[in-house]
């Protein structure tokens, strides 16, 4: 009797899971691939959910990663509306929500992250949403009507992108941020101030240092009450206060976790033949930083490719500085590296101009960069960051000198 082919089980069918499945074939995996995801839809990319989907320019399915035809062509078994409930690591066997047991030879954990919920009375009223899935986005979109009062709780990327989309639809929009600046976790003040200015210029009421006391309404939200005694009428509230890793499956199996499954540069967990990729994974070390968990499109793409390479026994490709983008109104903001308040900020061009860059220097080296409608500079900036070369602040600020020339200078 012929032995059955080896199987890779991918738990989670978001971007990282779906990309892992495709990358496995690309890397020459000949065995079975079973991809298990709890959403009813085919795997799709999430970036459009807070932007084009909310403004009605695109449907979530337009960003599909896998289709029925592609699954058939690539030999991927996709189980939708299903999830992995428990793992038996010694037996290499998973129990699914439906009760079925599925043996695996390699396991990739791509269970993603979930929106953190607001720990307040009223957070479960109708009209209060988080945004994570296509279903969430469609529910929010249905309520974005011109003139509607929309309140974003949290001035992070999700909150600001939804704010921009809602303002573009014609809603009355308020952003509430508890810190004294938006994007406090990811951006330095210089750039955060410009993001706030952009929103205010489009009529968004951005309130920093705002603390919510209560969400009020009978069975549907009608207003938010703030700690300073003020109140804001709301037809719709979207809560964007961060995400938590869906690492319960791994914790239950005894795999090392720390708000995320801890992995090395090859996407390996502490358990042989078990890997993790995407939002759920916490890199033990990535591009000079320890213990980072990245909720980004790029990380889902690259770590999925890494996990697939590890399954087939190939070493990981080297990673560049982490890259992230956000689109708000007419601005495309790209961030490379890890901006920190301790960095020296050097501006290239004026924030009053449609396009400019901010560079963050750490001891003469380029540690991070923000490109404001300046994506065309990204490749050169990434190279400047990866070469670990000395760069001078005046040279970076000199708009008369192409950045490309700095690459030619002796490192």
């Amino acid at each position, binding site marked *: 009797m012929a032995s059955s082919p080896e199987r890779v089980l991918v738990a989670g069918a978001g971007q990282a899971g779906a990309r892992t499945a495709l990358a496995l074939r690309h890397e020459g995996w000949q065995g079975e691939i079973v991809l298990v995801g709890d959403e009813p839809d085919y795997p799709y*990319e999430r*970036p459009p959910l807070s932007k*084009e989907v909310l403004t009605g320019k695109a449907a979530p399915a337009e*960003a599909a990663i896998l289709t029925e035809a592609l699954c058939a062509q690539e030999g991927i078994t996709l189980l939708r509306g299903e999830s992995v409930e428990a793992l038996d690591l010694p037996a290499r066997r998973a129990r699914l929500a439906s009760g079925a047991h599925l043996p695996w030879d390699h396991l990739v954990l791509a269970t993603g992250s979930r929106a953190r919920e607001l720990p307040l009375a009223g957070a479960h009223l109708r009209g209060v949403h988080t945004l994570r899935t296509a279903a969430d986005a469609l529910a929010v979109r249905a309520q974005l009507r011109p003139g509607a009062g929309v309140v974003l709780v949290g001035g992070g990327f999700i909150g600001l992108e939804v704010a921009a989309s809602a303002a573009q639809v014609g809603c009355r929009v308020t952003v509430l941020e508890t810190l004294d600046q938006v994007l406090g976790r990811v951006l330095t003040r210089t750039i955060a101030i410009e993001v706030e200015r952009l929103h205010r210029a489009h009529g968004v009421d951005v309130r920093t240092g705002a603390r919510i006391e209560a969400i009020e309404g009978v069975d549907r939200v009608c207003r938010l009450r703030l700690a300073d005694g003020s109140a804001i009428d709301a037809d719709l509230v979207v809560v964007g206060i961060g995400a938590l890793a869906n690492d319960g499956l791994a914790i239950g199996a005894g795999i090392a976790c720390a708000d995320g499954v801890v992995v090395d540069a090859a996407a390996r967990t502490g358990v042989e033949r078990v890997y993790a990729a995407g939002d759920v994974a916490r890199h033990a070390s990535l591009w000079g930083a320890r213990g980072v968990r990245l909720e980004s*499109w790029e990380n889902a793409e690259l770590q999925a490719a890494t996990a697939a390479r590890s399954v087939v026994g190939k070493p990981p490709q080297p990673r560049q500085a982490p*890259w992230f*983008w956000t*689109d708000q109104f007419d601005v*495309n903001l790209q961030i490379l590296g890890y901006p920190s308040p301790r960095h020296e900020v050097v501006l290239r061009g004026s924030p009053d101009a449609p396009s400019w860059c901010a560079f963050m220097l750490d001891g003469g080296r380029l540690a991070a960069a923000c490109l404001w409608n300046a*994506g*065309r500079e*990204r*490749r050169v900036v990434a190279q400047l960051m990866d070469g670990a070369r000395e760069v001078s602040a005046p040279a970076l600020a000199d708009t008369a000198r192409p950045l490309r020339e700095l690459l030619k200078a002796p490192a």
Partner: protein
Amino acid sequence: MTWHAAVSADELREGEVLGLALGGLPVALYRLDGEVFATHDICTHAHACMSEGYLEDGVIECPLHQARFDVRTGRVLSGPTRVPLATYPARTEGGQVLVDLPAAPAAA
């Protein structure tokens, strides 16, 4: 399909990309190893001009979200789209770059 005169040949330098409107279409022109190529100028993923992107080794990268296309074939090499970029025949004649475009712009 109709051939349109785009720019004079010396305006399109080696290894560079140039965006322009031609026959009602946004078109990006490229010169690679002396040869000229033409694609639609708008990324198939989001509304961005490929001519503002990064050109290297015959690959154009979108300035917004890093979708990468083979300039010669329009094929997607990586990035957040699966839809190839429309390409158009292009040649140099009498010091002019000529591009063969579909008659109805909507068809592109």
